[in-house]
């Protein structure tokens, strides 16, 4: 049941038990001592009673002596002890009465003694008065009467009895005092022995219990300190590794910082180049726009050319139609000339001159026909040329259209390029900004890492300190164990 008690409880309980034992012993001793003192007081009281009785009788003797001296000499200086003893004897009597108020026997004797003392003092007074009034002889006569001596003897007997009584009481009380002293001594002795035994037992119990408890605790402390030592070792090595890693991280971060700055510079250059590109794209855009306008003008010109050419074709066609008429006319003229020739031949000699004219007409018609054929060939050439031109122009027009479209595409591409380049500019600015922020963040990280490195160094130092402390704690626990359980170590 004491195993669950705490150290303080055990020690407190032990001390409380020892204190209780000591308190009991002290109480018993106090009681014995009080008895002893009481007895001693009673002995003293008895001694006082006896002294006061002796004083009473002495005072009475002084009265007698003073009286006789005065009677003999008549000198007043002998009355001095007589007068003081008158007062002192009464005071001694009263004192004895007050001292023996608890003793009925003595009080009874004092009741008897009182009148005798009064009588003795009255006798003395009468002698002194006689000496003063009647002189030496009358007084001597009174003294020589045996009355005074008788009273005095009786007083002596009574005081002697009282003294004996007191002496008996003294013996009794002395025996009581001795018995009380012996009891006190025995109480002191046995109480001390008992107390010592109880304290020793409690001490042994506490010591054995606590040493077992503390020994267990010290064992635990020892194992804990060993673990702590191992942990501190690990922590120290971990801190060293951490410090190394932090150094590497710091180096890496420095490189990262340099890279970030390079990136920021590159982004800045990219932004500048992008701005230049944007301005180039804008100028290209305007150039393309102008080229587009030129091409549109060309397109209009080409359209106009095509229109003119088509008009030319139509005119050629009209010429052809006219030429057809001419050709038809020439043919008809020819036919007419042939028929005229036939008719002229039928007309005989009269028709010969007409035949000549008809022949001329026929020749002319033949020539006209030949010419119309040539003209037709030319017109065909013109028309084919016009057609070729129109086709070529249309091809050119289509090419112009395609070129215009391509220029439009180029213009839109330039616009797109411009948009992309402005996006690139913004992006590179953002990159620059972000990289600057990143750089400052990395610097902060660097500072933080430096702090961490410092902290890890401190941790390493503190781990070493912890290791040192753990070692000390281990040796201390061993020492404590040696102190507590020397047989174990």
């Amino acid at each position, binding site marked *: 049941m004491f195993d669950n008690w705490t150290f303080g409880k055990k020690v407190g309980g032990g001390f409380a038990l020892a204190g209780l034992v000591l308190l009991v012993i002290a109480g018993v001793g106090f009681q014995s001592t009080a008895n002893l003192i009481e007895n001693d007081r009673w002995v003293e009281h008895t001694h006082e009673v006896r002294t006061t009785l002796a004083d009473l009788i002495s005072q009475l003797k002084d009265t007698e002596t003073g009286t006789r001296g005065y009677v003999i000499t008549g000198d007043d200086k002998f009355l001095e002890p007589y007068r003081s003893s008158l007062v002192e004897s009464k005071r001694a009597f009263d004192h004895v009465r007050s001292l023996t108020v608890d003793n009925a026997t003595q009080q009874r004797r004092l009741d008897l003694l009182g009148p005798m003392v009064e009588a003795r003092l009255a006798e003395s007074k009468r002698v002194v008065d006689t000496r003063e009034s009647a002189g030496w002889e009358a007084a001597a006569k009174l003294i020589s009467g045996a009355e005074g001596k008788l009273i005095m003897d009786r007083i002596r007997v009574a005081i002697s009895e009282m003294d004996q009584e007191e002496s008996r009481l003294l013996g009794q009380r002395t025996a009581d005092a001795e018995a009380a002293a012996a009891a006190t001594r025995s109480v002191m002795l046995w109480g001390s022995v008992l107390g010592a035994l109880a304290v020793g037992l409690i001490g042994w119990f506490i010591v054995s219990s606590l040493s077992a408890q503390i020994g267990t605790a010290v064992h635990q402390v020892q194992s804990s300190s060993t673990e702590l030592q191992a942990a501190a070792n690990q922590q120290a090595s971990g801190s060293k590794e951490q410090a190394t890693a932090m150094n590497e991280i710091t180096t890496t971060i420095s490189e990262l910082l340099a890279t970030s700055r390079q990136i920021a510079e590159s982004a800045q250059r990219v932004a500048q180049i992008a701005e230049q590109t944007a301005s180039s794209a804008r100028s290209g855009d305007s150039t393309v726009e102008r080229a587009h306008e030129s091409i549109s003008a060309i397109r209009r010109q080409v359209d106009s050319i095509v229109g003119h050419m088509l008009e030319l074709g139509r005119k050629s066609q009209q010429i052809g139609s006219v030429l057809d008429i001419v050709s038809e006319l020439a*043919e*008809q003229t*020819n*036919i007419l*000339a*042939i*028929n005229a*020739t*036939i008719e002229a*031949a*039928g007309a005989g000699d009269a028709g010969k*001159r007409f035949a*000549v004219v008809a*022949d*001329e007409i*026929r*020749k*002319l018609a*033949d*020539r*006209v026909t030949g*010419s119309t054929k*040539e*003209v037709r*060939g*030319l017109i065909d*050439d*013109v028309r084919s*040329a016009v057609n070729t031109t129109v086709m070529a122009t249309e091809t050119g027009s289509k090419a112009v259209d395609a070129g215009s479209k391509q220029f439009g595409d180029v213009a839109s591409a330039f616009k797109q390029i411009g948009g992309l380049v402005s996006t690139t500019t913004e992006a590179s600015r953002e990159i620059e900004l972000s990289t600057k922020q990143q750089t400052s963040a990395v610097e902060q990280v660097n500072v933080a890492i430096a702090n961490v490195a410092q902290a890890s160094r401190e941790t390493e130092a503190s781990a070493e300190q912890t290791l040192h402390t753990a070692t000390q704690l281990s040796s201390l626990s061993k020492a404590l164990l040696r102190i507590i359980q020397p047989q174990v170590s």
Partner: protein
Amino acid sequence: MKEALGGLSLHAAELARAFDASFAEAPHADARTFEDVLAIRLGEDPHALRLSQLAGVFPRRSIVPLPSALPELLGLVSIRATIVPVYDLSALLGRPPRTQPRWIVLAAQAPIALGFDELDGYRRLSPDAFVARAPAEGALELVQTGAELRPLVHLPQIIDAIVARAEQAKERKGSVRDVR
């Protein structure tokens, strides 16, 4: 083009000069004897007709078809207010028939018209251009016109045959249908 135009203007100038010259020169009497022919084409083949055997040349007229057993007879045509029968010259010469002739010639011998495809033109030929040849049906002679040799169609023979057939028919019943 400019070159052609230049040539054309030269040509025109030559024409004008020739035209003017025809009025300036005295009408020369023909010392030599010329023979005038019409150069024609039947299909792709060139032929020739003596102008002296013709009464006229006409471009295609509207031919009114005439029901007939003769495949050569294309129909009737009006020439100078005279209705004449039109025969297919190609078919008459034993060639593939041509139903739509572009030209029509009127024979001098009888009021009979003959249709053919193409008229190449009028040719005035010297007598040495005529080459005799073994007599064949419808073409006894050849004429040299430029680089080509053309069979000369002997029109009177053909007209005679037609007329003879008409006469035979007339003798039988007096009906064209019954000529056969």
